[in-house]
């Protein structure tokens, strides 16, 4: 699945760059679709301007969540696609992988969505995303100068995040 419109389809994953960063990008969204944070460590191809990119990412995840819940074979309820769901209903997807990258996703019950895009050989990143959620709580939620629902501008959070992401395999 070529998502960002690249023209080449490469069967082998790109070699990690000399900086040693295995993660490509990170997005954090809140319930209303506001992109609270976008961090980029290794992204060679830019196809859209930032606003469109964020909207596209949010829309993708919103639809994927809805789709995965409706296609759940263990769920007895048969609703139509597109009906808004209550929190608590439906299953939650946590990652998808292509031949060039892996996207890992975690949504908290309070509506904060964490998206981490890494190289395809990365394992299950659910614990990693949980740790990043804890970092968010410590540096952002507990920050008196931060207004919830706005873009995160905390240097400490960015530094801690960079340091942690560098250490994941």
């Amino acid at each position, binding site marked *: 699945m070529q998502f960002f419109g690249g023209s080449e389809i490469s069967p082998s994953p790109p070699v990690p760059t000399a900086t040693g960063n295995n993660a490509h990008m990170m997005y954090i969204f809140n319930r209303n679709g506001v992109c609270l944070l976008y961090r980029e460590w290794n992204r060679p191809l830019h196809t859209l301007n930032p606003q469109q990119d964020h909207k596209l990412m949010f*829309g993708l995840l919103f639809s994927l969540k809805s789709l995965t819940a409706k296609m759940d074979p263990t769920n007895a309820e048969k609703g139509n696609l597109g009906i*808004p769901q209550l929190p608590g209903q439906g299953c939650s997807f946590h990652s998808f992988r292509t031949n060039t990258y892996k996207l890992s996703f975690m949504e908290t019950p309070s*509506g904060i969505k964490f998206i981490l895009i890494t190289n395809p050989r990365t394992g299950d990143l659910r614990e990693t995303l*949980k740790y990043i*959620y804890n970092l968010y*709580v410590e540096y952002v939620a507990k920050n008196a100068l931060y207004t919830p629902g706005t873009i995160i501008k905390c240097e400490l959070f960015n530094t801690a995040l960079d340091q942690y992401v560098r250490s994941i395999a």
Partner: protein
Amino acid sequence: MPPAAPRSGEAIFSSVDRVNAKLFTLTYGAIVRQLLNDLEEVEEVNKQLDQMGYNIGIRMIDEFLAKSNVSRCIDFKETAEMIVNVGFKMFLGVTASVTKWDADGSCCSIVLEENPLVDFVELLDTCQGLYYCNILSGVIRGALEMVVMKTEVTWLRDMLRGDDAYELQVKLLSQLPEEYPYKDDE
């Protein structure tokens, strides 16, 4: 790797950094005292405490979710159990209980056996009508609003007013499902 199981309130309470209980109680008392001085009207103070609690609640919910590792609650009954068993224990170190469920499960009472906010406190005659612990009702309201439950939280019994326990009534007003926030024409 399967996700980790939710942690109990006791376990989290013992693992976080804690502040001296007396410092906490006296700081809260100082805040209420100052509010009474500044605003003079007891109703205004109640409202302000509720608003402060709301602001705390909207941030505290993330800390609660991150530390306790709970997944979404299926219904309001489970939510109330979570607040009482994990939430109060984790943040205040108190045991509380849920009672008086109504027929359709949308209204319940939370009874606090101990309340660290009110140690050493006595209400004066000039402050009748003051809900000293109103910050707690704001916290619950704010936290639940961030998990899409609109609630109304009121005090039924207050020991500072002569009752025998602290009882909060939590009433679920509505639960809004997730909607796509962007408009189609943008």
